[in-house]
């Protein structure tokens, strides 16, 4: 079992859970207050379990480019890009964010469960690069008040940093790396620091009004925002086109791993697609529950919850393409009941302002 560098900051205040080999906070005050804090003020999450991989080589973006379907070679230091690592069949190895640092340097933040797999994959495909897994403290400060709270710690004008921008800033605890990214559908920051600095920062951000939040709230927040959970909403047998990530594919960027398969799917269509479903009542759609139409099973649920933002059950499901148009009425088999749902956009919740 692995413990975060921030472990001692919250070990007596959180209900804990095991996730991808790590002992992490499931919840602090509870799902409802934590969810509300992130949607209305600011929540603070320990995400130190996420994989942090730094890569160096003189032409790292050019070398990395064939491993992802997205155009990345134009990225400048201080920019970042969400994308996926693809295998030769176009299957998704992981979803990642690439942060471009200085000359010849990038940083990846990847899923905890995929860190080791990715590291091996990168060694295999980038033999010239120096690949350095790091284990700093990593936390996410998310919500409409996140920027204001973080601003109390540094003189750097954070409002000038755009979404997916990142930089190193000074604080009274030392230098920290801040990136305007997140997994909640809100404005916010992901922050990396040395363990001791991270602990001081965690306590200071709480003192400045952030609410500590756990993985249970994080899962509902990301699902409401229509953000995928790797291993649940996609895996190595799903392609970006099936997973609703076609917008990541730059068809004109030249060759990349899996391109041939994606071209075939683009021309012939995909058999199943990931869609959003919204229902009524209080029952939660859970992974594996059948999605049905006209008495036949046409798909299955991959994620679901009873959304606190919407007050309705929501879910993601792979559904046979003929049934994926927005507004299509379907049903979800919830144990002995067959409950009506409608196909909707996957972004169930969009922040205002």
């Amino acid at each position, binding site marked *: 079992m692995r413990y975060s560098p921030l472990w001692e900051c919250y070990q007596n205040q959180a209900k804990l859970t095991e996730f991808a080999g790590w002992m992490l906070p*499931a*919840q602090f005050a*509870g*799902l*409802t207050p934590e969810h509300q804090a992130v949607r209305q003020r600011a929540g603070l999450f320990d995400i130190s379990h996420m994989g942090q991989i730094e890569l160096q080589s003189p032409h790292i973006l050019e070398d990395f480019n064939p491993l992802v379907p997205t155009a990345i070679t134009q990225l400048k230091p201080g920019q970042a890009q969400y994308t996926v690592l693809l295998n030769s069949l176009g299957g998704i190895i992981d979803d990642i964010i690439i942060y471009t640092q200085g000359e010849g340097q990038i940083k990846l933040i990847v899923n905890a469960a995929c860190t080791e797999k990715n590291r091996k994959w990168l060694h295999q495909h980038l033999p010239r690069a120096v690949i350095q897994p790091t284990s700093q403290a990593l936390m996410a400060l998310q919500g409409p008040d996140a920027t204001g709270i973080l601003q109390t710690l540094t003189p750097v004008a954070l409002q000038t940093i755009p979404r997916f921008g990142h930089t190193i800033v000074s604080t009274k605890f030392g230098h920290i790396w801040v990136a305007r990214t997140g997994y909640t559908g809100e404005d916010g920051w992901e922050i990396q620091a040395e363990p001791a600095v991270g602990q001081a920062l965690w306590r200071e951000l709480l003192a400045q009004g952030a609410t500590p939040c756990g993985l*249970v709230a994080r899962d*509902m927040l990301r699902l409401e925002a229509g953000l995928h959970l790797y291993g649940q909403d996609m895996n190595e047998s799903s392609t970006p086109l099936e997973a609703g990530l076609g917008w990541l594919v730059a068809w004109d960027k030249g060759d990349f791993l899996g391109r041939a398969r994606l071209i075939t799917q683009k021309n012939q269509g995909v058999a199943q697609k990931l869609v959003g479903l919204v229902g009524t*009542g*209080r*029952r*939660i759609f*859970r992974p594996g529950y059948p999605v049905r139409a006209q008495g036949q099973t046409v798909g299955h649920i991959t994620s679901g*919850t*009873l959304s606190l933002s919407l007050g309705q059950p929501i879910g993601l499901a792979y559904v046979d393409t003929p049934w994926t148009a927005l507004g299509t009425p379907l049903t979800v088999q919830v*144990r002995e009941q067959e409950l009506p749902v409608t196909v909707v956009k996957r972004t169930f919740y969009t922040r205002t302002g």
Partner: protein
Amino acid sequence: MALTYPVELHYTATHEYVALTGDVAVVGITAFAVEELGDITYLELPSVGQTVTRGERFGTIESVKAVSDLYAPVSGVVTAVHEELVDAPETIASDPYGNGWLLKIRLTHPQETEKLLTAADYQAHLGG
């Protein structure tokens, strides 16, 4: 938060409790079950007049985290159902042994209560 198991109640290994008054049993779920489930979202209960059989499913409880069946601790006829909880199941968590009661059963086999666990037995079961 320390979980409590009142000594005057009886318990099952499947985490229901029973409060006995004469031949009527008030049934709910234990503080341990509440803690394990987390945020409770949905409750399905039988109707008044229905018969339930010891050890068999009488309802369903769901939380954000999990789905759980509810098992009858005793056999009998349902004489009351806590309908308000169906619309606000999350309130079970705040008072599982009081206002979180689920149903009342008129016992048809009173001798079954001898098979229920004491608070000490139940806590030993949780520890084991």
